[in-house]
């Protein structure tokens, strides 16, 4: 019997070798922390605690370079700084290790100072939002690839919808009254603008198939010529619904970055301030 591939690794881990390196990192951190407990107190300001904090800060700075690389593609390519894929993998796993080191630095306790409390909370937020984004990036593309006939560029969605709306209106104006009324009642508003729907997260095609059924009864009543026009309207409506699915899901793929990036920048500034205060005082 053929060996079954481990589905977790296949579905959720882009690069198993980076995942293994991450596990080794976690194991090393755990070993260090156990040694710390055995040999000394767990405090942020002793040698152990400062080492965790320093490592976390250094790692955080390196992890943040990924954002810089994305915004200076030309320089990164010219300097041959390597492919973007390993950069992202490092960003992901080193970011997660960063949180672990931060927690070790705080002794897994909620800090009492205002600045340190914010640092603690923001570290968790940034890592959690990053993890959330990584999961979305693994999950949504598989939904998008699974049942939609068209591939749509997110930036072109408004133009495409305007085009579909105009085409449908022009066509409907040439139709007999029942089709024109049907268009006004059921389609005109739906074709007006992109409409995000939650159902697309669950089943990218289910909602579309259901909505197409409304055409069936009317179709039976029409002459061949009118039926042909209705079919064309139906095709336009179906394309619009597919675009809606793209709009909903691609917006999420982009939107999560707003949860992650601005907070990361605030965190970086606060970490810098934290280091400054420690060195100064």
């Amino acid at each position, binding site marked *: 019997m053929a060996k079954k591939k481990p589905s977790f690794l296949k579905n959720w881990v882009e690069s198993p070798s980076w995942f293994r390196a991450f596990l080794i990192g976690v194991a090393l951190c755990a070993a260090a922390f156990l040694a710390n407990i055995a040999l000394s107190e767990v405090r942020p300001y002793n040698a152990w605690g400062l080492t965790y904090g320093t490592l976390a800060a250094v790692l955080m700075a390196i992890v943040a370079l990924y954002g810089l690389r*994305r915004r200076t593609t030309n320089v990164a390519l010219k300097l041959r700084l390597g492919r973007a894929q390993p950069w992202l993998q490092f960003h992901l796993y080193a970011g997660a290790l960063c949180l672990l080191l931060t927690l070790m630095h705080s002794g897994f306790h909620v800090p009492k100072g205002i600045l340190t409390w914010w640092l603690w909370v923001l570290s968790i937020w940034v890592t959690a939002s990053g993890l959330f984004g990584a999961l979305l990036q693994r999950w*949504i593309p598989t939904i998008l690839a699974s049942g939609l006939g068209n591939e749509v560029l997110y930036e072109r969605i408004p133009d495409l919808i305007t085009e579909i709306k105009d085409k449908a209106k022009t066509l409907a104006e040439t139709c007999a009254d029942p089709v024109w009324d049907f268009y006004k009642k059921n389609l005109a508003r739906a074709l007006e603008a992109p409409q995000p729907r939650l159902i697309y997260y669950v089943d990218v095609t289910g909602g579309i198939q259901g909505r197409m059924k409304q055409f069936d009864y009317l179709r039976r009543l029409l002459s061949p010529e009118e039926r042909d026009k209705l079919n064309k309207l139906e095709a336009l409506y179906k394309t619009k619904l597919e675009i809606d699915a793209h709009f909903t899901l691609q917006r999420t*793929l982009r939107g999560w970055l707003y949860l992650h990036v601005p907070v990361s920048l605030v965190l970086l500034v606060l970490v810098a301030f934290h280091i400054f205060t420690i060195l100064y005082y």
Partner: protein
Amino acid sequence: MAKPPQPLDVGRTEFRRVEMYKDRWASRDNDSGILALSDDKLSPSQLQRYDLFKDYDEEFLERISPDVSVAKWRKGSIFFEEGAYLDLAFFIVQGEVEFFVSALSERSRLSMPIFDDSRTRISEGPEPFRLATPVAAASERVVLPSQLRKPESSRSITFLSSIDIVSLPAGGEGFKLRPGEIFGEIGAMSGWPQSVTARAATECELVQIRMPALRLMKNESKAFKERLDRVYRKRALAVQLKNTPLLQDCDESFIQELTREVELVSCKPDEIVTREGGPVDALYLVRSGFLKLSQRLEEGQIVVSYLSKGMTFGEAELLLDEIRGWTCTASSVEYTELIRISRDKFNKLVNNYPAIKRQLWGAAVARIKETGANRKYVNRSEFIQTALEKGLVQGNSILVIDLETCTRCDDCVRGCADTHGGLPRFVREGDKYENLLITKACYHCRDPVCLVGCPTGAIHRAGVGAVVEIEDNICIGCQACARNCPYDAIVMHEIGEIWPEDMIPEGLRGKVRLLASKCDLCYKTNHGPACVNNCPHGCAIRVGSLEEFQGLLAKHE
């Protein structure tokens, strides 16, 4: 608000145009060695002075003249190097041209016009390209750029028309051609790399013909076609037949016999070679291009297989007496060159060489199995049909995106735009096949039809390599390449300039300048294709063969 178009600096434009026009007729970018070059366009009467063009009428010559030039080369100039892709053929008017080859073992690596396994490393800094000279050739082997090296696994394939002049001893003395002879035409017509290095033994005057004109000349004149075939038979056919896996055990006399008697068949795109049920009279061997094999199924035709360079067709029909007619309709997908071995010759071959008979039986059984399976499982046939229709068999480097992992971040497009002055060279749109998006990025075709009809030669193969590029400075924005490209991979941009008043052709004067733009695989940069490099999820992939494409699909099964 958009900036109004600015008039161009007249002198600068004209200077650049002349400089670039000169480069167009040389395969090497630096120090081409051209002493003198004919005017922009030779008149029909000027062309008719050369023996080569005597068979053609003035109207025809007017049509091909943008693709013909006459150049004087200094002694020692290199016309092309071993491994170079060239869309030029040369007719010697005066002087002598000599040819060299490196060791045979090295030569066998030349035929594959795809890049090395990583594909993205195609431009990792130019590797030194040492020239084989008559003296050095015996001891020094020509170092080839990495992108031309054929993967180990493919070495058993023989690419017939990749070898241009093969009767030279490996690494030995040069071979010379004199006035009245033509060379480079096999590489130009087939779109495969040259197998020899050509150098001016004396000061030379050459008529240089670009591939589109050469193809038209061959189609227009039977005499010219016969002349090319004669040259091919004389210089290359025997060794090529001998290098074909099927015929490698044949003795010299039989090969010579075959060389004299086989028929060379040239097909235009969509030309039918054999009809299903028609009488079987020969075995066909593909020299270049592709053949599509289809069979009747219910009311339509189903594609059951395709044949590429080095493959044979007809063995099953000729070996099995029970098969009365062709089992498939074979038609050319593009310009295709075939070798036709008649039934008599085939019978002699299999009777004299039992090993060949066994090999042909193997091929016949494999073909029957394949066609049977493709008839039974229509999705397999659909894949072949799609691959032929969408040109997947054509591409040397097709950009596909795995939609199951692509996060639509557009970093691929951003990388491309950043590398090319802000204008991306492809759109993340195109046909979908299962989970793969075949983008509208240049395929860098084996037979680039976009080259046909370019009035200035701005679109060309870039030096040594399979990359098809557009030279901005000589592109006049006529859109011929964009119209010819079957895959919509060339787009026209307005660049905010107006053509100067001394512009040639006159029709462009004062008009807004358009520029054709397409993927150049970032070959001028020190990194590989930016799209692949910059994809954070590794879902932008360059594909160079149908097998690789199938491999990607199989990953998701």
